[in-house]
């Protein structure tokens, strides 16, 4: 019996080659997308779950409410909070802290030195978390001055081997001893570091370590807690809040509360939390979006199968009638049909898995993930097998039930028409497919429009042909004037400026709290220290007053942007003094030191940050300001030989500081980097909407073929009665176009809502209107027309004599 089913199934599949090809390729595409997206989603959900105490581990997050009423969430808190809370609250089983303090030059070989971030971890860090040690002792490796734990790739980078326990490593601050080599942090860990330092190494910098035990207000250290199983989260949160507030001095102008973020939420649910460490941060929004797309693609492929099988079922009425006459029961027929579709699904799955295996390396390359098909993963296998069964069953159920209902006496007579009435499943499915396609096309169009908008938006300064060189060491900073002169001597270098910060998001911009002496207005402005060449190098417009001068007499002069003038409500800004009531560094307030510079000029507004953020007011102070030292050169370069120019620049740098490697960046690349994730999303949408519309079109193609075949006689009659080719094509296409148009109506509000949500992520964004969706609809209709017109034209060209001859 079973063999018979298989035989029939196989024959049916090979007999209707187009039909089988479309079904298998549609399902294969659907499965491939689904598997890839499942891998992605499972990977996103797996973040940090490899720690055995993941369910009891939390990160402390601080919510700061400023005097102005603004609130911010910060994942970096004061160093005292973790240890004190642990001592006082028994529900805290353990705590550990992480602190990032800039970079070091590292490497025994002077020619292969590089910069590494300095991560300082508490001594218990490796006992707290379950990162794998290759060499060394997890419980002692982070104690003692100048001891250093590194990852295996860092070991390979600087030593060329992994087993480097006890060896020493040059840094420009101290001679480090390697006390541990760990496996690289897994790609699905929110914590990712290269070198991990002990507190003792850096204690001298922190008031001989006293800072760690006495500061209650800094926003600098990441603190993780492990809690007892039955602790009350709300209680602990308010206890921590009370503890910290009781240690605040009266001068604190903001209020704080603390809450616990579960370790497993850090990766996906940290939007709106500043600071802290979050390697490859993800987002719930995109996770849901991808999960939905994955399911949709699969559903669309199943719709195809369902539609085509139903259409094909009308051709199988004779076979089914015969089987019934010979005594086949209803359930047997349904089983046969289900069997066929499950076989088809399985074949598609196998092809899809092969395709995915083949594609994964490329996808990992693009996404920076390490996705793999884990054939031993029970959840994945369960998902895949249930999807095959489910899609097999869903796809076949409708046609199977339809066929099994056939009355054998009728089955022989004529081809029974299916779903020719106004409302039919077939039509609903086509509408759904095209609704999804149109939604995705619209999303793609709008994402690209938005990216275009961002790329073409006037930033208020020029990013082109700018090379930024970091000032990374004391000697370079001390001799910057001579270095600048050397740079300027090069032909390719048109101008050079030094500044404390450059546009783009490299490091945090200090925010200065500006106050006027005239009124009560305040402004929180980005603070930049720069020399007089900054304005000309970046092509920033001076609207009023004059530029800064390098002259020491100008050391307390500043320029402020139009927006700052507006926020401060100044009518005659030039010549006025501004009080700087402290600066905020990464959420940390630095008290002011009586610096009250004079405004010498007003500059036009410009965007120094990504357009995801709204424009901030800016203050450009003389580089001699007491707040922030210079950190970068910006060189305006015109050259045909970048390699030579860069080599020349490196040579100059080396002359002044042979210890530290040069670090340079092209500013335009850096700006592109700001929108890399958006671009990737745009590309993904383009790919997925391509796939979706492709599958939908394959379905439409086959469906059109079936529908037109079933109308071929009618078309013949119409032609005999005088219908032209055009009349026929219009008649046939009209129905399909109507379905697509209906899909447009369904898709537009849903897609509109989703895209609007995505756009809220940008401070500068296009406004969407119906025309984007109409364009998507027109594209979909055009594609549908092209698809259908093949069959429509073919049918219209047939001589009716042929189709009416069957008597």
């Amino acid at each position, binding site marked *: 019996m079973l063999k018979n089913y298989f035989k029939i199934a196989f024959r049916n599949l090979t007999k209707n080659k187009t039909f089988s090809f479309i079904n298998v390729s549609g399902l294969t595409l659907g499965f491939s997308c689904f598997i890839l997206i499942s891998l992605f989603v499972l990977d996103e959900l797996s973040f940090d779950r490899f720690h055995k105490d993941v369910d009891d581990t939390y990160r402390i997050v601080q919510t700061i409410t400023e005097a102005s009423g603004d609130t911010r969430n910060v994942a970096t808190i004061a160093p005292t909070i973790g240890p004190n809370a642990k001592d006082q609250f028994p529900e805290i089983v353990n705590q550990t802290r992480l602190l990032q303090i800039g970079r070091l030059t590292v490497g025994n070989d002077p020619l292969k030195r590089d910069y590494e971030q300095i991560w300082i971890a508490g001594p218990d860090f490796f006992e707290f978390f379950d990162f794998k040690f290759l060499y060394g002792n997890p419980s002692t490796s982070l104690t003692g001055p100048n001891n250093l734990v590194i990852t295996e790739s860092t070991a390979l980078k600087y030593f060329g081997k992994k087993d480097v326990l006890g060896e020493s490593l040059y840094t420009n601050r101290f001679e480090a001893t390697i006390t541990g080599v760990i496996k690289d942090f897994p790609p699905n860990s929110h914590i990712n570091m290269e070198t991990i330092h002990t507190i003792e190494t850096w204690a001298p910098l922190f008031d001989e370590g006293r800072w760690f035990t006495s500061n209650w207000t800094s926003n600098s250290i990441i603190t993780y807690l492990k809690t007892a199983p039955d602790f009350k989260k709300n209680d602990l949160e308010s206890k921590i809040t009370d503890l910290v507030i009781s240690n605040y001095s009266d001068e604190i102008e903001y209020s704080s509360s603390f809450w616990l973020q579960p370790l497993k939420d850090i990766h996906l649910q940290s939007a709106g939390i500043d600071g802290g460490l979050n390697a490859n941060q993800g987002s719930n929004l995109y996770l849901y979006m991808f999960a939905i797309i994955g399911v949709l693609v699969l559903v669309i492929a199943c719709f195809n199968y369902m539609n085509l099988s139903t259409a094909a079922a009308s051709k199988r009425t004779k076979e089914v009638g015969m089987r019934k006459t010979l005594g086949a029961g209803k359930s047997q027929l349904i089983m046969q049909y289900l069997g066929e579709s499950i076989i088809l699904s399985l074949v598609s799955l196998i092809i899809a898995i092969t395709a995915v295996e083949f594609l994964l390396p490329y996808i990992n390359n693009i996404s920076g993930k390490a996705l793999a098909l884990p054939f031993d993963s029970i959840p994945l296998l369960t998902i895949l097998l249930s999807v095959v069964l489910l899609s097999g069953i869903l796809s076949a159920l409708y046609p199977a039930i339809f066929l099994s209902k056939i009355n054998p006496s009728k089955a022989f007579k004529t081809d029974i028409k299916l779903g020719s009435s106004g409302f039919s499943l077939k039509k609903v499915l086509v509408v759904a497919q095209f609704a999804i396609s149109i939604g995705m096309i619209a999303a793609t169009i709008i994402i690209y429009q938005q990216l275009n908008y961002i790329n073409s938006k006037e930033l208020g300064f020029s990013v082109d042909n700018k090379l930024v060189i970091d000032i990374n060491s004391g000697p370079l900073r001390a001799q910057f004037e001579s270095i600048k002169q050397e740079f300027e001597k090069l032909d390719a270098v048109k101008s050079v400026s030094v500044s404390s910060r450059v546009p783009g998001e490299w490091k945090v911009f200090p925010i200065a709290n500006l106050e006027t002496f005239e009124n009560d207005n305040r402004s929180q402005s980005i603070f930049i220290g720069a020399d007089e060449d900054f304005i000309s190098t970046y092509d920033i417009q001076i609207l009023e007053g004059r530029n800064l001068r390098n002259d020491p007499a100008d050391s307390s002069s500043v320029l402020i942007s139009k927006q700052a003038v507006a926020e401060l409500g100044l009518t005659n800004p030039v010549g006025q003094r501004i009080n700087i009531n402290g600066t905020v560094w990464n959420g940390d307030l630095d008290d002011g030191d009586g610096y009250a510079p004079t405004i010498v000029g007003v500059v036009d507004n410009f965007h120094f940050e990504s357009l995801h953020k709204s424009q901030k007011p800016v203050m450009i102070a003389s580089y001699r300001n007491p707040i922030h030292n210079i950190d970068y050169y910006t060189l305006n370069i015109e050259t045909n030989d970048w390699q030579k120019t860069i080599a020349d620049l490196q040579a100059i740098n080396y002359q002044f500081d042979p210890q530290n490697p040069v670090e340079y960046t092209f500013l335009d690349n850096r700006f592109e980097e700001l929108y890399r994730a958006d671009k990737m999303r745009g590309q993904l949408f383009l790919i997925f909407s391509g796939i979706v519309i492709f599958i939908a079109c394959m379905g439409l193609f086959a469906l059109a073929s079936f529908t037109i075949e079933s109308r071929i006689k*009618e078309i*013949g*009659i119409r*032609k*005999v*009665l*005088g219908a*032209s*080719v055009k009349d026929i094509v219009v008649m046939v296409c009209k129905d399909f176009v109507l379905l697509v148009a209906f899909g447009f109506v369904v898709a537009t509000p849903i897609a509109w809502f989703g895209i609007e949500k995505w756009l809220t992520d940008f401070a500068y964004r296009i406004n969407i209107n119906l025309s984007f969706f109409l364009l998507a609809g027109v594209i979909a209709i055009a594609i549908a027309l092209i698809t259908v017109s093949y069959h429509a034209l073919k049918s219209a060209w047939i001589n009716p004599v042929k189709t009416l001859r069957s*008597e």
Partner: protein
Amino acid sequence: MIQAKNLKKVYSTEEVETTALNNVNIEIKEGEFVAIMGPSGCGKSTLLNIMGLLDNPSDGEYHFLGHDVSNRTERERAQLRKGNIGFIFQSFNLIDELTVFENVELPLLYLGMSADERKEKAEAALERMSMMHRRNHFPQQLSGGQQQRVAIARAVVANAKLILADEPTGNLDSDHGNEVMKVLAELNEQGTTIVMVTHSPHDADFAMRVIHLFDGHVVTENMQEGFHV
């Protein structure tokens, strides 16, 4: 009205070449009622299709209403056909999804007539075939004889000068068949030229002239008793 000289029609498929018509010479005058008889597969339908401008002959000459139409493009043939020729088929070939009225109206639609004009003409044709009371029914709800009357209404609605009927009674019982033949005879009396393929000698009696085909040839051409041209 129709002059065919040395008509030849060859169907070539991959395997075989079938000569469906060979050296057929026929002349039909306006107002005639001609029956074509012959065994199955002798080329009757093929001849009718060529006469009805649905197909081109492989060789020979064919004149319709004074035009040489032996080798016209499909578009030209369709243009000439419109409004001039009505077709009646053995299996009625009504469109199931359309009502009786809509079926009858269809040729007028393709002639580009206005809705009012269409309504008037279609109702007149239905009236003529005594089918007005069924104008809103669907074909499947009618008897075979009624369906064929609707098909005839559709054939005459545009005032076709020539009606080509391919075994119009083939699917009908004798009562209904007779009814249809009477309608055709009436049409002929009112001036419509009719060429009809039939197997039934009884039906052929309604015609003035009977052409016998055998294996693609015209074997005999008899004037019926009592008819004189």
